[in-house]
């Protein structure tokens, strides 16, 4: 029997569907239901939930950038926090497959020329053993184009919101993307500061525009 990746429940598909090639889903119904899809009116730049569709004040105040827009899949609720923590910090790589199908769908919609992971600094990469952003791309069956590198720096999550909004550039271009549209895939979108720094570095690599897909939209 196929087991849910997060609990002990089985995830068998009806046998007639299996006959037609349906694969067992990675999660059981209970765990699937614990996640909350982002829906309803939102900021068309950053996916933040709004009273009505439009552009949120944060996005209006950002300086000019080749960053176009972010699409987030889920709310960053407790269940999502647990899954991302187990995936990213505990290093449970296989959990990337939970999001594979949805990422593939959104990536197709974004229709960009290249897909670039958010790089980790070398010491962080050695500590974690894999790059979560690259894992999400690879598990979705997409090809990662490593266009960027990252210098060593302090831990992003330890900084305050204000510090993160004015974060210093640690990304640098390592590849060539002249005139290309680039899609960046990552786990969480919070203030958008990281994504804009990534976009700046991609602009240095010659990119024309940058979109992003993130698993969860945190912050209010």
């Amino acid at each position, binding site marked *: 029997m196929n087991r849910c990746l997060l609990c002990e429940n089985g995830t068998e598909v009806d046998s007639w569907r299996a006959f037609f090639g349906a694969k067992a889903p990675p999660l059981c119904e209970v765990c699937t239901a614990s996640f909350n899809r982002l829906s309803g009116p939102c900021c068309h730049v950053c996916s933040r939930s709004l009273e009505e569709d439009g552009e949120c004040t944060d996005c209006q105040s950002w300086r000019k950038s080749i960053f176009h827009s972010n699409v987030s899949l889920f709310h960053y609720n407790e269940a999502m926090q647990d899954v991302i923590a187990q995936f990213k910090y505990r*290093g449970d790589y296989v959990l990337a497959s939970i999001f594979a199908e949805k990422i593939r769908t959104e990536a197709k919609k974004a229709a960009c020329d290249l897909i670039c992971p958010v790089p980790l600094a070398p010491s962080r990469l050695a500590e974690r053993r894999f790059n979560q952003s690259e894992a999400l791309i690879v598990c979705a069956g997409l090809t990662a184009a490593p266009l960027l590198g990252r210098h060593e720096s302090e831990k992003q999550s330890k900084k305050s919101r204000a510090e993160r909004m004015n974060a210093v550039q640690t990304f640098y271009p390592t590849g060539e993307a002249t005139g290309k549209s680039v899609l960046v895939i990552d786990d969480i979108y919070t203030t958008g500061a990281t994504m804009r720094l990534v976009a700046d570095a991609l602009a240095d690599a010659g990119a024309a525009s940058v979109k992003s897909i993130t698993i969860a939209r945190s912050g209010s």
Partner: protein
Amino acid sequence: MKNILFFTGRELTVEEMQEPIPDLHHFAVQPGVSDEPKCQRCGNETNFSSHPCARCGKECLYCRNCIKMGKISSCTTLYRWTGPEPDVPKAAGILHWSGTLSPGQKTASDNVLQAIQQQKEHTVWAVAGAGKTEVLFAGIATALSEGRRVCIAAPRSDVVRELAPRLQNVFPNTPPAALYGGSPDRHTYSPLVISTTHQLFRYTAAFDVMIVDEVDAFPYTFDHSLQYAVQKARKTESALIYLTATPEPSWREDIQSGKRDATLIPARYHRQPLPVPSMKWCGNWKKSIVPPAVLEWVKTKEKALLFYPHIETMEKALATLKAIDSRIESVHAADPLRKEKVAAMRRGEVPVLLTTTILERGVTFPGVDVAVVGAEDRVFTESALVQIAGRAGRSADCPTGEILFFHYGKTTAMVQSIEQINEMNKLGRQKGLLDT
């Protein structure tokens, strides 16, 4: 020196080692995942995943079974301390306890002591309320005085937290290290360790005496990885003591046929018989949720536990019962207010507490009555029902209590649980362990 004590008996990853790391010559090393593959920390042989690894540059296997304790990959090295063991002070085993053992406890205590001295295996089968912890005191005292290291493995962290202060009181010279996820004692050394199974995974050939408490209560009943943890954490030459109130059928057979060395304590410490459950048909409770018979029962109760097989039915029942008395509450395993509600029940502020099987063992409310709704559900196994019945009549002041199985069709489990309780009372009388 403090550092060396910490390493004694442990097998750890670099990430788990505390600075400063002592001389590496004193460590034996092995890869975290063997070629078979098998996780060398938890014994898992089936639940792996893999990814291209930035550390070793290969497609690297990792164990998903124990990943919550920190990742073990193919490229992880496990370090085991092989330096000299610390001396246990002579006074370590001085027992500060003036209580007396019941005759049933005395027999068990003697047999446990003997098994510990002879480094053998022994099972204590003691009914709920028999006083099984006291049965261990003499054996632990002897082991500690002889400089041996003792571990009590318990199924859940709340059991560890409950046992630790009791042992601290009777062995004041040897404060036990209580180990569970996030416990403050995680990094301390003691010759007396009380640990959840998970924390046991971090030990190798550490203990001369291994005691497994509530062996039947472990998830999936003494599953493969727990057996692995117990065997890995004990020394080759060591004693192994099992405690249980409701051994599963295969264990009972082995005990009865003499294959498994065991002592049975069929009677409670207070010398009163175990209250015997009765059965009452209540119709299709899944439809009515709170059948009329259950409603009547609840109305007459001042202090009662009402078991439901599932959270969903229990929450529906709560809505109905709150209309009768708003003080009625419910708890389940993941309930964030679980501790608070149990405490309120203890203080007598909750007349009826609805619960899933999480309160089937461990918890004691003096003078409580117990009912099970849907006793025929498969979550209510024979041993679960015996444990549930074991909540009633625990205290010497209120040795009686009502136990009622509301059902929509009798099951073998129900009938056999009642037989088991009757059998215990019969044995208790035969052995002269009961006053009535």
